[in-house]
């Protein structure tokens, strides 16, 4: 693994090679905006931030949030309650209109992730049909005047769908079926550890057809596939959580391309051990060449070369989980202790926000 120490001149050289003057890293035309959920004192909030960590808009939530469905073209987002979540809140990024509260449908709860389709007419969210123990995508009318009415649902082909992403074709969804059966009466307790069957499912966003389903080899049946990001080449990168004994250390990070077998990447032994069998968030940098995988349990963010699967290095951050693209090879990373840093495979962590008592950033950090 390469050292992350790097001098300023070399850094400037790298930035130039990547076609970016340092100034443009800070203000590339329109300044990028970010979204995260957080606990601030006794309050739970969804927040729109700039890259300096300054609040642009704060949306109150009734309970702890998780991640977002994003519609950058129309300046909208939906934040979902953390599983078992019974609420979601749709809001405008500029705060021009009051937020709209969504309730989970009868017998369903949100898992915390969702997507808008590019035309802005549909929003889909991963949900638990919990009495049946089946994963579904709730389909919502996101058109103007649609009021986010729930107009149907698609099966995800598995139990416990967690993150969903839209492939670059704008038509195909990829769902991480974590495989873990839960019931809201018992919180997040795993009820089927012996028979877990996690999978990646590709679903037609228009009609819910299951186009392809991929499973890991049988010895990894307790490896819950949870979080997803897209690489530059359109491959899906996934991060897993192992529910078996700590002494087992399966690889936790993988890559899949439609029609092929998934690849798993372990990285060096010490890095793998440092994950503590847990990946909490996955994000690609803006170029899609580097993927970051975080483990709040192990207190580390690990970077991967999406072309080769090579481990590029890591950043240590206690309870660090949210990762968002900042610039090529660079990420914003936040933590449950209120910290915000920028970091990357070639970049030692640079503090942006200090630790703050009572402020906890939640698992996911998204760039609009």
């Amino acid at each position, binding site marked *: 693994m390469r050292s992350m120490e790097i001098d300023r001149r070399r850094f400037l050289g790298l930035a130039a090679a990547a076609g970016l003057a340092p100034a443009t890293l800070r203000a590339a035309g329109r300044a990028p905006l970010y979204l995260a959920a957080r606990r601030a004192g006794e309050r739970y909030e969804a927040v729109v931030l700039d890259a300096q960590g300054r609040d642009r808009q704060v949306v109150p939530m009734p309970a702890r949030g998780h991640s977002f469905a994003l519609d950058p073209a129309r300046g909208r987002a939906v934040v979902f309650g953390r599983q078992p979540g019974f609420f979601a809140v749709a809001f405008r990024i500029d705060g021009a209109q009051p937020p709209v509260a969504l309730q989970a449908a009868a017998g369903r709860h949100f898992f915390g992730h969702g997507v808008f389709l590019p035309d802005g007419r549909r929003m889909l969210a991963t949900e638990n049909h919990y009495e049946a*123990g089946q994963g579904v995508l709730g389909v919502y009318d996101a058109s103007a005047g649609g009021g986010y009415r729930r107009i149907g649902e698609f099966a995800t082909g598995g139990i416990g769908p967690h993150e969903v992403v839209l492939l670059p074709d704008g038509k195909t969804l990829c769902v991480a079926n974590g495989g873990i059966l839960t019931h809201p009466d018992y919180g997040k307790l795993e*009820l089927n550890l012996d028979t877990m069957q996690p999978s990646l499912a590709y679903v037609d966003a228009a009609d819910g057809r299951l186009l392809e389903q991929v499973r890991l080899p049988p010895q990894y049946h307790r490896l819950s596939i949870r979080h997803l990001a897209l690489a530059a080449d359109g491959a899906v990168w996934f991060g897993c959580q192992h529910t078996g*004994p*700590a002494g087992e250390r399966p690889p936790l990070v993988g890559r899949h391309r439609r029609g092929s077998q998934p690849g798993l990447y372990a990285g060096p032994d010490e890095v793998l051990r440092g994950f503590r069998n847990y990946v909490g968030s996955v994000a690609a940098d803006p170029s899609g060449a580097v993927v970051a995988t975080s483990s709040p*349990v192990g207190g580390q963010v690990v970077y991967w070369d999406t072309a080769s699967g090579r481990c590029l290095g890591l950043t240590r951050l206690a*309870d660090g*989980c949210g990762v968002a693209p900042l610039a090529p090879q660079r990420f914003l990373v936040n*933590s449950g202790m209120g*910290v915000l840093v920028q970091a990357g495979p070639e970049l030692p962590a640079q503090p942006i926000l*200090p630790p703050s008592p009572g402020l906890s950033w939640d698992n996911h950090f998204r760039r609009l």
Partner: protein
Amino acid sequence: MPTSKWLLAAAVALAPLAAPAAPPADLGQRLADGYARPAVARLAQQAQDLEKALAAWCGKGGGPAGAPAVRQAFSQTALAWSGVEFLRFGPLVQGNRYERLVFWPDTRVVMQRQVRALLAQADAAALQPGALASRSVAIQGLPALEYVLYDEPGLLEAPAGKAPDYACRYAVAVAANIAAVSGELRQAWSPQGGFGGQFTAPSAGNDLYRSQQEVAAEAVKALSTGLQFARDIKLAPVLGDSPQAARPKRAAFWRSGMALPMLAASVRGMRAFYDAGGYRYAADEDWIAPSLRGELDRAAVAIEAVDAPLAQAVADAGAWQRLALAALILKNAKDIVDQHFAPALGVTIGFNALDGD
């Protein structure tokens, strides 16, 4: 905060977990010898006794004469399990052992469906020695045994010589399976067992536990999640918001009336597991031990004060209140573990790390 100061703070937060306090230098040994080994040995012994009692009784066709001994052996095994269930790491999570011993909660009623199907088929192959081990976990453990003893076909209530033969032999096979899995637990925790050796001797070359700090983190997690399980999984769903809203059949082991004795035994077990650690505190933290012990004792006493089986008790306002109080105390105990006991050992429990997603 001035920049220089918070940069320093950030650096501290970024550093690998520095230890502001240290666990006992022999913590793993203390927890293993002082608690875990006797607890798993007791479970293995009780399960063996249960298998013997059942085999003898079924050999005579069952009947009221021998039923109390079987009931007693079942109860003792269930209580022994309560002292083990919160050690949900290492050997207990290997090879589905936890689920094989106790598949619960069972929101899809899998156990009942599968046991009924098995009894209806009277599948002889399932009763061959060791055969249950490769069947569904739902039909291998204590809940399945409780079901056939206390519910369907209700072996314990059968007239003398009339206990259904297949169901009785199935009960013996389940008890044998529980004894076998418990025996594996005892072996794994023993000094010769792989896990027992690793837990008691953390070192740089130990793949599982590098330091007593990592053993301490395991102990903290076991207590914290054990307390959460007792309150959020065992008690809260049963209690509901009021005696009218109580759902007694959501309780584990409601059929045998063991739900409350097992819950109390589990809390007492966590108290003993804590005591076995021999934790020492700095002067300003020495309130932690008496507070935590006090809460665990109060919770156990509140549960033990309810003298009816849970199914009847929750409909009674007074008993419901006592159990609601127990739930509250368990929450307090967990808060002490997470917010004070853990940091006193130098163990950090993060906002995101604590409650994974």
